[in-house]
């Protein structure tokens, strides 16, 4: 009689494999290639990369692609930013009473936009190929009340920014 050597569980013991295991990286290279192609395709290629700040909820709408270069203002719950720099402090979308001007604009925002305007004029004076731009990109939180939007737009209009581009998230 011939007995087979039994393993722990009572079954026939398998022949031992080599301790060295070769890593199959061909499959990994395939996966990485597909991932890379997908990320390259979805990365932004426009002249302007519009990235809203954390916590800013843009409203949803169907609109044309964001491919415009303009002064950017962000209207959030606690602050208004111009080109990434906070200029106005808000409390639940309400500005300080002392910041409001009789014409409906906001003093701090208007002065920040005035500086931007002067900068543009200075550049246009030095460089004939560059013209003063009236476009302004507005990234406002969807919960912002219309009174605040009006104040911000009025502040911008007073400084010559009359071509408003409202940023939205494209829905499905």
């Amino acid at each position, binding site marked *: 009689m011939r007995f087979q050597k039994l393993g722990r569980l009572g079954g026939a013991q398998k022949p031992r494999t080599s301790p060295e295991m070769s890593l199959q*990286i*061909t499959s*990994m*290279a395939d996966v*990485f*290639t597909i*991932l*890379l192609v997908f*990320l*390259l395709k*979805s*990365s*932004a290629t426009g002249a302007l*990369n*519009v*990235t*809203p700040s954390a916590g800013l909820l*843009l*409203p*949803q*709408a*169907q*609109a*044309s*692609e*964001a*491919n*415009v270069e303009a002064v950017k203002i962000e209207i959030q719950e606690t602050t208004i930013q111009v080109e990434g720099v906070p200029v106005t402090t808000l409390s639940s979308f309400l500005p300080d009473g002392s910041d409001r001007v009789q014409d*409906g604009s906001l003093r701090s925002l208007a002065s920040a936009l005035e500086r931007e305007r002067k900068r543009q004029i200075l550049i246009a004076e030095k460089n004939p190929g560059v013209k003063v731009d009236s476009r302004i*990109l507005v990234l*406002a*939180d*969807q*919960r*912002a*009340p*219309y*009174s605040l*939007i*009006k104040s911000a*737009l*009025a502040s911008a*209009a007073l400084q010559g920014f*009359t*071509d*408003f*581009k*409202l*940023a*939205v*998230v*494209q829905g499905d």
Partner: protein
Amino acid sequence: MIQSESGSGSQDFDLNLAPIIDCFTVLITFMLVSASFLSIGILDAGISAAGAEQTDPSRQPKLTLAVEITSGREIRLQLNDTGKARSGSLDSRKLDPVKGEPDFGGLQGRVEEIRKRYPELGAAILSGSDGTEYKDLVRAMEITRRFVPNVILGGF
């Protein structure tokens, strides 16, 4: 004498994938960190109090549609004629909110109907109460723009 190809002149070689994987790992990590998966769109808007072209009477549209969203989420539409032949309000409607939200379906139907009845409709002025949320105005603007290309913000 012809040399055998299996010697030093062999055309076969093993592709070393390790450096390629290293490059791919770095590239993918960079792309993941810098990628933005939000698709941002742009809505063009003007305001009724800005720009010289708004005050040029020869370029002002004869028919304008005023759309107002109140803080109670009602939608009020009013069709105004600024021409000499007819004057005043031609049509006025009020849309009550549906399940607490503005009746955007009703707004689309009304604007489409007005546009068909008055093809010369030139512009729409969109406004809201002080407490109206921005997202409601954007939604109303998106709907109105499908039928009236020139939509400006009012209430200034």
